[in-house]
């Protein structure tokens, strides 16, 4: 029985649709992640090394530093929004298809 289960995982992982899901998800997630970390690190780096740029005033007394810090909030929320939409419209749908197919296969071929 144990072997049966183990084999099952292997088979699913080789399923081309699963491979597609995995590839798309990894590309998306790590891309977003790298962007978010890089964008965030610009804040302490800029504050520390580009003081002259950060102090330029853009709107009344509001300077680049403040705008950049506030833009981090926008970026964080935008990533959350983009990811949840992408996940529910794309990843979740594909995952649900694979899972329901699996359930049907199991019904057709009763557990040992």
């Amino acid at each position, binding site marked *: 029985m*144990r072997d049966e289960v183990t084999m099952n995982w292997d088979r*699913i992982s080789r399923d081309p649709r699963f491979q597609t899901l995995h590839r798309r998800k990894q590309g998306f997630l790590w891309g977003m992640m790298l962007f978010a970390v890089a964008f*965030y690190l610009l804040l*302490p*780096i800029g504050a520390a090394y580009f003081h002259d740029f950060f102090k330029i005033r853009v709107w009344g007394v*509001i*300077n680049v530093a403040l705008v950049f810090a506030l833009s981090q909030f926008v970026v964080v929320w935008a990533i*959350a929004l983009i990811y949840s939409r992408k996940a529910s419209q794309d990843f979740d749908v594909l*995952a649900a298809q694979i899972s329901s197919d699996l359930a049907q296969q199991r019904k057709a071929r009763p557990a040992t």
Partner: protein
Amino acid sequence: MIQRHVKGVAVAVLILGCTSVQRAFAQGAVSQDYRWLTFTVFAVILAITMYVTYLAAKRVRSAADFYTAGGGVTGLQNGWAIAGDYLSAASFLGIAGLIALYGYDGFMYSVGFLVAYITVLLLIAEPCRNIGRYTLADILAYRNDPTKTRVVGAISTITVSIFYLTAQMVGGGVLVKILIGINYETSVICVGVLMLAYVLFGGMVATTWVQIIKAVLLVCASLVIVALVWAPYGFSFPGFLQDLVSDPRVQSRVATLLGTSAKDMTGAELGQRFLEPGLYFKAPIDQISLGLALIFGTAGLPHILMRFFTVRTALQARRSVVWAMVIIGGFYLCTLFLGFGAAKLVGSANIAAVDAGGNMAAPLLAQFIGGGPDSFFGNFMLAFVSAVAFATIVAVVAGLVLASASAMAHDLYVGVLRAGAGQVVSPQGQVKAARVATIIVGALSIGIGIAAKGQNAAVLVGLAFAVAASANFPCVLLTLYWKRCNTSGIVAGMLVGTIAAVGLTLVSPNLTYPKAIKAAAHQVLEGEAAKRAASTTALDAQDPQLVAKAKKDLAALDKAVSKAKADIENWGDTQTSFMGLQEPLIQLKNPGIISIPLGFLAVLFGSLLSRDRRAEETWNEVYVRQHLGIQVSHSTPETAWSPTAGSAVPDGWNRASPVRRR
């Protein structure tokens, strides 16, 4: 029977709270006449949370109920609970205070704490929900040797939680003392007893609701204050800031911070400087190092990870993080107005006079906005904010105690000790173990809280984040995403990450170095005579301004001299820090930039230098499960794939090795 206990404890806590509070207070920010208001507001919050605990206690029957509220929490509820768990007194009062005292630099903390949730959302929350069960070690034990990984996972969970918990206890005790004048020990005991009542009887159900209630109160209080601060400017952001930078008190605060370099600056320039970075952070590398620890540490905080096991599906886990990001982000935007508003309306000097760390900025602002220290509404606002601050500490501590108790009971006792002896613990036995562990951790936290009086809470929080980022985060991330990751890697990563983070902090400038202090003190004493002579001559000057300045200088000199003498006496013959060092070995205040890469390297090399067939064989299972989320939580592979095996593995704590079992 449990219900009767809860009632009894609730009454006892109320009585203990009221009587000890009456006896123990000295002088706090809340004036004597209005202290009853704080207690009334707090008693109402207490009554609500106790009622929730009473209801929750009926629902706690199994270990799953105790640790994860039976998985019955919705995404929205969990989002609020995460916010309640995360927005500790440090961020609520501490960040508002930093912004009030140092302007822009304080706000950079807010940004870091929020960006941290990107890591949680994209990489951690959903796979953890799909793979884990009750604890962080569950995730690690999935592919690896359960005994070894549970031991290291539990150790690091307890380490991180204890640092964090001590920080909350110390910070909370001090705050409550400043706010309402209850003495330090009494407030630590009150927090401890209250928290124990919630966790012990209500488990995760009560903890979740306490966190939700507290988060809602905190957000409401902040929104009201922000509205009142901002409304006079017609909700114009530039208008608000323009008024801030033109404020003479803000300008003089910047002048004080900059010292001699501010000599040639105009008032407008000084005010504008408050909105620029660099008033708080002096060393760039410290800032970056702290930033890294913040954005990766959150994803390794056991009490935050544990929250994802309270929802049923990956979709709900995702929703909880998104809600948490909205709530936490919104709150951190408020801190900008809380801090700047306090700097302008209360004045940095007045804030620092009550508490040098600036923690009183938000409460004092609330009082001012309500109409000042003599008005009823002003005192009502102060009372409300103080009560929320106290509820905050209790809610965060409850989450931390639950996380450490689960590591102790579920991982160490049930998963290692009893499983090692080949025994399976019954569901009732598991709940009992969880409650016993809660009492142990609760008692410990009270003891540590009292013993750690006077420790620097900010350093302790920084350390908790550093260990979480350097040990927990690399291990969890790589076991989820890297096929070759195995037991040796996890053990190495946990040990190296924890030791590096703690070790580097111990040799950092955060500790006290008596030699330097005494050298500075001697310098003050040596310079005393010359300075005194100069100021005394100035006393005879014609210009009244000069005379006033000389008097001020003399007073400051007296203060500095008596402090220097006290320092020299205090440290006696001690030349070295707690670690036996005369001076710090590294100049880094937060170890993140070194210890995080070390943690990752340790997992990498540990894994590559050994082979673990089981870790690789289970990879496909982890890989498929984390994407598809099939058989989540209540199922070990055995229970889900074969109907007969379900009852044989009670509660499925032990996803024991399929290879070995075969």
